[in-house]
Each structure stands twice: as structure tokens, then as C-alpha cells.
């Protein structure tokens, strides 16, 4: 198991390298660069930037150099000094911009994941063990509605209802007083009181699908001969359900952990924009639009790392839960 873990950790290094290279190249692919986009924006507002200024700026930011030099400088800074470069648009180091956003994103993502699983797994098990019962039909109906209704739509409805009936603004993750305040106990409480709404909206979307998956997985397992055999040995129905089929049925859940993490970050972008959440999604979107290459690159690299980390975690968890997967034995 230890050897397996080490091997997987080592393998993630070249994977990360390829991801960093690809993300850098992808950002450079659209024609032009940040400065030409910037000049165009200024021009549309009636201001002219002279060609000489642009050349000077280009030199100052190193944008005139070939792509591989730019890449080496960028990745060198990250690896050697933890320096993600300068955000061209915000005129700030990228690191100072992304860490709080990434932190909030991860907090939202993980709490949504936990919320989704806490909701989906028990309901899925209940639906499977009480197949075709009244509650099964109710959950199935809600599940299909949840699958069909897009998250941003749900977010709009929640915002409208809470604003017009309760007079409350549910947007954002902080109250006005705490928006730009330094971290304190009060700020954490304020975050928690705001976090549950996006969590519930994001969670609704995810649970609907997971309930269906869990129900189908447990149903598959419940009628397998080993369950009947265990029943014939005198085990009671609760043990029969939880000790055997549910454990096996959880496998697919764990294997989706790898892409559940970045999926929630990406999937959350539209909802984040709708609810004006200070998470990574909207900032990444903005950075891509303005060709703010270092900021966008940093985000994509972090999302890639998150995927690799999630996949690694799910592989290790799977090997731990299911003995058939431990390949090295």
C-alpha cells in the first residue's frame, strides 16, 4: 500500500508539468495579448495609447519574448519562489488575489460535497431498499426535477423569493461589514451564515443525480447471491444492507471524487456569478476574457492540481475500501 501511494505521488509530478505547459499554451492561443485587449478597451472609451507606449509596456512585462522563455520564467517563479507572477489587470501579485478566493472555493466545494453525500446516500439507500414505495416515488420525482432544473435558475428563484418575501439579500458570502475585513471569529461565523444557500443550491443539482446512482447501485447489489447467502446465515436485514451492498455501492461514488472537486468549481461558476460569490469561478472567467494570462494560468494550474489530488485521494480510498483493487498484492 505504501509503495502504491509513493508511486502515485511520483507519477503526479510529470502530470502536473504537462498540465502547466498545456494551460500556459492554451491561454496564449487566442490572437493578441493582454495589452492589445487593454488598448482596445481604452480605445473604445476614446483614449488612444501610442504604439511606443505599447512596445515599452510589452518589454516591461516580458510579453515580447518567445513563449517558451515566458513559460520558463513563469513556472520557475512558481516552483522556486511560490511566485505566480503579476496580474496584469489588477496590478497585484496573483498570489494575493487567488488564495482567499481558492480558500473560499474549496470551503464551498467541500461543504457542498459533504452536503450532497449526506443527502444522496441515505435517500438512495432508502429508495433502493423500499423500491416502488410512496417515498421512493416522491424522491424519484424530486430527483428528476432537480436534474432538470439548472442551478442558476434555482439560484435566481431563491434570490427572488428571499428578497421579495423576507427582504434579505442572499448574494455573496459575507455581510457588507465583513466583506473586506481581516479574518476574525466573527467573519467566520458570517461566512457560515451565508455559505449554506449556495451550498444548498449547488448540492441540489449534485444530489439529484447521485440519488439515482446510489439507488441503482444498491439495487444491483441487493439481489446478488452473496447477500442471499448472508441472509441464509441468519444476519438481519440492517446488517445485510449496510455491511455488504452499501459498501460495494459506494465504490462509484469514491471513484468520482477525482472529478467531483474541479467539477464543483467549474459547475459553480454560473451560480457564483448569479449569486455574486467571491469564489474562483467568476475571477477565472474574467481573467480569461481579459487575457490576464498569469492569473488565468494560476487558476488553471490549481484546478489541474485539484483534479490530480482528487483522483489520487479516490484511488487510495478505493484501494482501502475494496480489496480487489489493490493491484500490487
Amino acid at each position, binding site marked *: 500500500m505504501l509503495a502504491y501511494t509513493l508511486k502515485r505521488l511520483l507519477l503526479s509530478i510529470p502530470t502536473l508539468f504537462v498540465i502547466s505547459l498545456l494551460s500556459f499554451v492554451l491561454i496564449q492561443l487566442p490572437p493578441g495579448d493582454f495589452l492589445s485587449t487593454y488598448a482596445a478597451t481604452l480605445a473604445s472609451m476614446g483614449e488612444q495609447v501610442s504604439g511606443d507606449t505599447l512596445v515599452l509596456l510589452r518589454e516591461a512585462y516580458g510579453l515580447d519574448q518567445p513563449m517558451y522563455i515566458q513559460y520558463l520564467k513563469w513556472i520557475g517563479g512558481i516552483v522556486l519562489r511560490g511566485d505566480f507572477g503579476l496580474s496584469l489587470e489588477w496590478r497585484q501579485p496573483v498570489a494575493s488575489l487567488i488564495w482567499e478566493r481558492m480558500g473560499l472555493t474549496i470551503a464551498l466545494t467541500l461543504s457542498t460535497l459533504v452536503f450532497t453525500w449526506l443527502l444522496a446516500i441515505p435517500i438512495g439507500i432508502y429508495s433502493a431498499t423500499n423500491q416502488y414505495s410512496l417515498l421512493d416515488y416522491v424522491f424519484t420525482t424530486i430527483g428528476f426535477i432537480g436534474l432538470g432544473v439548472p442551478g442558476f435558475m434555482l439560484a435566481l428563484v431563491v434570490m427572488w423569493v428571499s428578497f421579495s418575501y423576507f427582504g434579505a439579500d442572499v448574494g455573496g458570502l459575507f455581510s457588507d461589514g465583513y466583506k473586506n475585513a481581516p479574518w476574525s471569529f466573527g467573519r467566520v461565523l458570517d461566512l457560515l451564515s451565508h455559505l449554506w444557500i449556495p451550498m444548498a443550491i449547488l448540492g441540489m443539482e449534485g444530489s439529484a443525480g447521485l440519488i439515482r446512482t446510489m439507488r441503482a447501485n444498491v439495487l444491483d447489489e441487493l439481489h446478488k*447471491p452473496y447477500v442471499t447467502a448472508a441472509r441464509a*446465515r*441468519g444476519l438481519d436485514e440492517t446488517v445485510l444492507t449496510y455491511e455488504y451492498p452499501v459498501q460495494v455501492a459506494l465504490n462509484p461514488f469514491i471513484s468520482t471524487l477525482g472529478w467531483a472537486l474541479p467539477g464543483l468549481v467549474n459547475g459553480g461558476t454560473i451560480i457564483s456569478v448569479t449569486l455574486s460569490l467571491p469564489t474562483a469561478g467568476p475571477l477565472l472567467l474574467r481573467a480569461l476574457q481579459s487575457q490576464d494570462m498569469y492569473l488565468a494560468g494560476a487558476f488553471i494550474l490549481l484546478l489541474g492540481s485539484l483534479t490530480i489530488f482528487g483522483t489520487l485521494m479516490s484511488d487510495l480510498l478505493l484501494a482501502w475500501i475494496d*480489496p480487489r483493487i489493490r493491484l500490487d498484492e
Partner: protein
Amino acid sequence: MMTSTDAVRVGTTSAPRAMDTPVALDVNDLRTHFTMPGGTVRAVDGVSYRLHRGRTLGIVGESGCGKSVTAQSILGIVPRPGKVVSGSMMLTRGDGSTLELAGLDPKGKVIRSVRGNEIAYIFQEPMSALSPIHTIGHQITEVIRLHTGANRDQARERAETVMRQVGLPRPDEVLGRYPHQLSGGMRQRAVIGIALACNPSILIADEPTTALDVTTEAVILDLVRSLQDTTGMAIQFITHNLGVIAEIADEVVVMYMGRQVERASVTDLFLRPQHPYTQALLRSMPRLGKRAQARLEAIEGMVPDPFSVPVGCAFHTRCRHYVPVRCDQPEYVEVAPGHWVRCSRAGEVA
């Protein structure tokens, strides 16, 4: 499927024994039906037999004749929508008292204390009958602790004893393994070990050797027989393989379409079969000494649709001795001591 190695060897393992020991389970007129949108399938329709201590009853018949459902009915594990609709299954317990198994709540405490404890069940496919994600040790100690209240160490000790009993000489190693890490023969030994863990008085073996190769099959049959000699348990052995029946059974019940068509000692059944179906089954079996060119006889016709069992004698559509009217209501009669047949023309046909 039968191969030439399945040739009948009546009594070569050990001579069939008379069913003269105390009764362990008395099944009387058992009926288990499956009510479905397309109609009712009478999977078991009036089956009666007795299991005796230290003796083996073979139940034989084609797939779908109801032999497995009969066994599942005893433990209350008939898959939905199957239900025991009438009949009695009287279990004689260790202290001499009796327990009626029919009508018990299939999820209740009473039947659960019988399952795996007094009546153990071995399934056909050892791989799928074991949990893939638990060690053999976990699965056997779980049963021991459940029924005997033993602690972890005692259960472990008992598990090791049982594993040695079923011929797994290094129990420590096997108990720590997962099912997929064992060979087919070892798995079936482990399954038998789990079944014997609580010293059951009755063992139901549902085609336990069908998934094994012929050599392993012979070894496992010998093992089951010798375990019976030491523990004195009654065995109900279900199979479609007459070769296996000849080797292991003392008494045989032949089933067709959920009904019992013949019941006799193993010697009587093989030497003096009375029912045309039994006779046809025996003729369809390869034997040593038969001319190699001779074609095996197949039973004519097809197994009827379970939703519409032929009226009267269920076998009449495939029977070469069928006489209309006379064969309409076959009675189950004792044609010789201990030899019962459901055929209107019993004694005339051979």
C-alpha cells in the same frame, strides 16, 4: 452437464443407508407460489419428504422444477414475489422440541436464529456466495459470534478448527484472504466451513459441486460425506446430476414442474424406477460399458411453460405411455415399502 465421468456408481463411495434414524425435518404438502402479472407460477406444489439425522436426501430434477425453491422455502428466503402458501415444515430442534417453520416472519428473530445455526445452506457458486470485500475470516467469525455469542478470540479459534475440518490445513492463511485470492475448490471448502461453523443439524446443499471441475467435485463429495459421519447432520442435497445423487444420497425425491413424481431409496430408484420421467432421466444418462456409438436418449418434447402447467399429470405432454382419461388424475401411491410414485400406470410401464 453430464460427462462420461459421471457414470453411475451406486454405492461405491459407501453403501446407501436405511432412513431409520430420528426425523430432523418433516416437510408436508409444501406449496410455494409466485404471483406475477402474467399469472401464478406454482414453483412448489405439494411436496412432502423427511430429512433424517445422519442421512442424505437427494432432490433431483431439471432446472426450474422447483428443487431450489423448496430449499429456500425452508429458510424463508424465497425471492420476491414467491410465498409459502400452505403446508408445514416441522423442525426437530436439539432439545427435542419442534418448531413449525411455515408462517414464520421471514425477517423475524426466530427464523434468523435457525438460519446458519440449525439449518445451514450451501449455494451453487462459491465465488458469488461470498462477499467480495470481506475476508473469509470476517465472514465465518461473523456467523459464529452471531449465533453462539462467542467473543472475537473464541470465534477465531472455532473458525480455525472448522477450516481444518474441511481440509484447509493452514487456516490462518485462508482466514486472512479474500474470496478472489482462493482457488475454486478452496472457496467451496471455505463456504462449507462457514456452513458448518455453528454445528447445524441440517445442511442444505444446493448444487454445491456444479461450478467445480470433476476431480474437485469428487473430493468435495467425499468431504461432505465424511463430515456427515462425524457430525451426524441430515443433508438435503439438490442436484440435476444423477451421477452425484448415486454417489451421495440415501433416499431420492424426483421433482417435475413443482411436483414430486417419485420418492425411493437410491437403490430402488436406480434399479427399479417406476415413473416414466425418472426412467427417461436415467436413459438420458451416459454409462460406462454402453456402446460408444449409441446416441444418448433425450427426453422428448420441451419443459412446459411454468405459467400453464398441463392439467392432470404434468408430464403427460412428454410421456410415451400416456393414455387419455386414465392418466388424468394420478395419485401419489406407495408401490413398495418406502417407494412412492405419482403415475396412474405405475407398475405397468418400464
